[in-house]
């Protein structure tokens, strides 16, 4: 089996990898914004409750959550497809991290912005939606790009709940034609090709936002 054949075989799983990524994004982005804004703007028990939800999704290992949701929910009468479980678990995990980027970006804004909004007669939600969030967006972009890369990479885990993604396909090919060197090199190359452009964009954004500094000096 040539290296090109291996890559073509792995590519057959690309549709599933892409679907899990897109579904994950569909959960991650709204969750990150809602949870981040709530954590920024609430006090007392609502703050504690949203923090607990975020901590649960951030601190639990994804692989355990995938198994728990995929194999346990049917016992409670809830039947979700592997794709739905993968998207939900990976999305909310990444969204949990994203929520911290949203909260941190909102906290980094000058207090004068909210005061100016108040003096113009804006309501709290108007200040948040029209003044604070648009400014915070730029600051949170590098983290969002990094989280996107994490999401694409985490999709490899759905192969463990028998979804036929790129990793699953690679394992099948490897079992069929015993050639692990070609197959796993091909798989590394496939993920690198998918994620590297986002890595470049993330680095460019970091420079743009000023979060990443150039080498100050060489040791």
């Amino acid at each position, binding site marked *: 089996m040539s290296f090109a054949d291996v890559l073509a075989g792995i590519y057959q799983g690309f549709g599933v990898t892409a679907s899990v990524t897109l579904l994950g994004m569909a959960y991650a982005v709204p969750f990150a914004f809602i949870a981040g804004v709530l954590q920024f703007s609430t006090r007392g028990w609502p703050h504690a409750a949203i923090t607990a939800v975020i901590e649960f999704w951030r*601190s639990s*290992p994804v692989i*355990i*959550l995938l198994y728990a949701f995929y194999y*346990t929910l049917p*016992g409670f009468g809830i039947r979700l497809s592997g794709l739905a479980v993968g998207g939900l678990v990976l999305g909310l995990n990444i969204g949990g991290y994203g929520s911290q980027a949203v909260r941190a970006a909102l906290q980094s804004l000058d207090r004068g912005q909210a005061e100016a909004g108040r003096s113009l007669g804006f309501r709290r939600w108007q200040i948040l939606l029209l003044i604070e969030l648009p400014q915070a967006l730029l600051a949170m972009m590098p983290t969002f790009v990094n989280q996107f890369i994490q999401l694409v990479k985490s999709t490899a885990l759905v192969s463990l709940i028998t979804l036929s993604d790129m990793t699953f396909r690679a394992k099948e090919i490897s079992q069929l034609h015993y050639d692990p060197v070609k197959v*796993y090199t091909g798989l590394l190359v496939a993920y690198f090709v998918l994620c590297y452009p986002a890595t470049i964009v993330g680095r460019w954004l970091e420079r743009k936002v000023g979060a990443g500094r150039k*080498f100050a000096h060489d040791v």
Partner: protein
Amino acid sequence: MTFDPAFALSIVPPIARALTTTLAVTLLSCVFAALLGFGLEITRRSSKPMRYAMRFVIDFIRSTPVLVQLYFLYYVLPVYGIKLPALVVGVAALSLYYCGYLAEVFKAGIDGIPRGQFEAAKALGLNRTKTVLLVIAPQMLRNIAAPMGNYFISIFKSTPYLAVIAVPESFGSALDIASDTFRYGEPMAVVGALFLAIAITLSFLIRKFEARLALSAQR
């Protein structure tokens, strides 16, 4: 199938016993990842060609999933006659994956040190090794305690990946119980709760440590 609390309690001891392996893997991977990451970063700063070469290595490591890197090491090394125990392969894979992230953390830590420190070391006639070990490393550690701690927690949360190559850590032990008893709910809940409790405790300790470092820096 419902959740059986008595069964859940009965499986706590074997899963908790396997935590010894989980914690040993975490500790070893943290040490090796930090050492490798520091080595990568120092090599990156040694010359211009090295800067590009090491950046590519770091980007490659960061742009591919840890699960795929684990499969690669586990299945490809034996083809070249390198037969290592699964535990060693697991620690190697986690160390390799996270050293890419830690190298970036070290980069930010070194960049955060004032230029005068490098000049002072040079004025004192310290060579490169002494400058790195006696002047840069201690100050850098204060800058990077928090992000480094977060990656150490990520390493802990990645240890369940090792179950796929049959390392007897806690998640693997939970999976064994699940496949023996055909009950996934209880083992996943027990192992999930253990990981969540440890991860949250670790992040609390890191925040405390970070606050203490900030205090000692103010003095």
